[in-house]
């Protein structure tokens, strides 16, 4: 028998930091709010601004479910504090499209059945939008590699790939026409239509 004490390594008397005000432009709308400085951008969006389209899967930058766009670049919103982003221009899934007016990526995700439970989906779509903005991925293999920061436990990867490839193809972004190796060969790239 031995005694174990559960406590922080560097034990200081508990105390709270003062809150700070933050100004963010989110989906073209300006927001002012006050949060504790240790509030992540993710929690600020979900808990303080009721923008729950951005998901929390791990809170440690390991799964990508919380991906949003800051000035057009994809970022894990759980790995940045809201106060560090004062003045930033942020786009979340709610800013990319609405159920009535979907973005091309959102529509392609539906047409290719690129999700099942839907929980990683907003992060996948924001990440894919970031990938398109970067303009770096030109081949299927590059898309797969550069979408590998976003986990999907349902295993919708082949359909996520074909959804993104369809949007890139329509925009003339595919440089390399080498044989496709996932999501079916290229002739089967089109979604199954009813």
């Amino acid at each position, binding site marked *: 028998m031995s005694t174990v004490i559960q406590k922080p390594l560097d034990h200081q008397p508990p105390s709270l930091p003062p809150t700070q005000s933050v100004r963010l432009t989110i989906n073209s709308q300006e927001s002012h709010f006050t949060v504790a400085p240790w509030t992540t951008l993710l929690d600020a969006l979900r808990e303080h601004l009721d923008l729950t389209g951005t998901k929390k899967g*791990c809170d440690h930058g390991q799964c990508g479910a919380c991906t949003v766009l800051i000035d057009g670049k994809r970022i894990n919103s759980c790995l940045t504090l809201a106060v560090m982003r004062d003045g930033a221009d942020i786009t979340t899934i709610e800013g990319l499209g609405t159920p009535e007016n979907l973005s091309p990526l959102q529509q392609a995700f539906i047409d290719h059945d690129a999700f099942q439970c839907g929980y990683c989906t907003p992060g996948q779509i924001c990440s894919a939008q970031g990938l398109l903005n970067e303009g770096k991925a030109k081949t299927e293999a590059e898309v797969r590699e550069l979408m590998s920061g976003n986990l999907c436990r349902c295993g919708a990867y082949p359909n996520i790939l074909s959804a993104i490839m369809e949007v890139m193809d329509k925009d003339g972004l595919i440089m390399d026409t080498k044989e496709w190796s996932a999501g079916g060969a290229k002739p089967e790239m089109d979604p199954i239509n009813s």
Partner: protein
Amino acid sequence: MMTTDYIGKPTNRVDGPAKVAGTAKYAAEFNVPNLLYGYVVSSPIAKGKITKINAEEVLALPGVHKVFSHENVPSLAWFDRSYKDDVAPGGSPFRPLHSAEVKYSQQPVALVVADTFELARYAASVLEIEYEQTAHETDLSKHIDDAREPGGGKTGYKPPKSRGNFGRGWEQGVAKVEANFQHGAQHHNPMENFATTVEWLGDKSLNVYDKTQGAFNSQQYIMKVFGLSKDQARVISKYTGGGFGSGLRPQYQLFLAVLASLELERSVRVSLTRQQMFSFGHRPHTLQHVALATNADGSLSGINHFAVAETSQFEDFTENVVGWSGMIYDCKNVKLGYRLSKLDVYTPLDMRAPGAASGSIALEIAMDEMAEAAGLDPVEFRLRNYADYDQEQNLPFSSKKLRDCYHEGATKFGWANRNPAPRSMRQGNRLIGWGMAGGIWDSATQPAQAKASLDADGHLRVQSGSNDIGTGTYTIMTQIAAETLGLPIEAVTFELGDTLMPEAPVQGGSWTASSVGTAVRKACQALGEKLLKQAQKMDESAFADATIDDVQFVNGQLRLRTDPDQAVVLRDLVQASGEPRLEAENSKLPGMLGMLKPAQYSMHAHNAVFVEVQVDEELGTIHVTRVVNAVAAGRILNPKTARSQVLGSVVWGISMALMEESVMDHRFGRYMNHNYAEYHIPVNADIHDIDVIFVHEEDDKVNELGVKGIGEVGLLGVAAAISNAVYHATGKRVRDMPVMIDKLL
């Protein structure tokens, strides 16, 4: 011309727009007013007791409301049965914050409730707790001899049945193989962390937004534990961010959130962290032994399959690991055994294709070894041992197109070009291997209720308190309802996930399509009969003498089969009724009676999987470059969502074979890789070609719709096929999952 024949057509998910636009709300996303946040403190020890909780400093923080622990939890339900949920195994269920005793590592020991999430998290991090630790046992390999046959207690569990005389079959065999297999514990890890938001409505009335695979199961649990009435305990679960079995039983955040809400008379949310997703049920660490023998003609003369799995000290979690081995192949002499060893871990939990996913690894690798020892191609070997009836239950199969799975899968894959010799194919520095395997899964149907209502605008609303964990329930039920009443799919809304709706079983066991699908079908048929009656009330009705068999519902109309020009628009019938809507429910009786009737048929889905791997000869890295999965699962309601189920299963199989394992450090009795960075699952770059084939299979016996369910069958055989392909590539037989580089060097 418009058609309303939707069943069997690839159809986009009806819940798709909400999911891709981020408007689908999951359990932790209901931001009700005046919400408090609870943060769970997890035990660092695996066994012992809590001796002191120093909560004073934490409680002094402004905004901290309460620290719940065993020291201050009010008196709750006393008997074990109150804590048993619909799918609880035998034993005594774990009660959160019940006593000072710690039964497993990461056990919830306290809940800190505060005004904000950040404050609750901080307060939990500085809460000091003292424990007295005692020695724990978490290593299954050291407790094989303690293993014993499980007691009963879990609905549906039957001990495996042996037959014939394996000893004689083994003796008479001319070729034999015998080997041990194992895989470690695995955690479901759906993307959405478990969470419950409890909305306090006053007077102990709650709206409970829970992450679960069964709203009614959660409701039953909190009613019994907290003494709530049905009206007080409404459970809502419209979207579930993945389940895979983890949401079959109510998890402890539900208990904690309801406890805090009732005690503080406030709305409360409790979300688990990803680390805490490793603090409850899991696929158990399982050790297996398989021995096979064949006669000179390649027929199996004996099958022996024995498994030992871990369970907790307080419940006997049972699953069917070995039973399939007595069913899938033709053999007179079968010896099966299954035992459990009690360890200081949490009770395991059904995880996608529970039992079968584990058992098929051992049996199907052994079958590959046996085929080689018998000098037969693995497909040919399985065909020679094809079971034409279920020898375990001594029943005919309601349908079994496994032979077609072998043939169609092999053709699509190009299996005929395989050189049977290991290390016979390469491309540059990569060794190429082809392997195959297969599996079998139950096709079950549970009692379920549904309600259909047609309003005066011609909109059909169908409800059943089921769930959609990503399986496509919303979509296929909409298809079934639309086709049954001949309405355009846009005119139909299917709703689920609310205990105010007609009751449905937990979503699991691949039974939702058959159970809820049948209920939806029958509710719509009952509504159809009401509509016919209404049509008969019209002056000079053409339907006056018509029975339900004389009419059809097509294109929004009710019409006579013999004279389709005699038609009436459905919404006109509702308007003529003078009621705002016409409603009907399916009858409860057939479902219940069906459960009591002795089975006349063995009802199962089957699959065959063909895999190509490429193994870097120097580095041992393994790439699964091609998979063909041929599935026989009866009628496919929606080939689009069904294909996704099987794609996902293949990704799961790749994960089981090459990556996934909760690694226990037995010194601490704790899973050390309890996060998404170290608990490896495939990413997009790991996944290559996956081909899904649904072989044609008609079955009018399994249920009215002819569906068998496909959430699980696609996973079977995938991991074994990969291991078999790795053997074919490298000449190394790996029986210890996951197959990693060190096992190939």
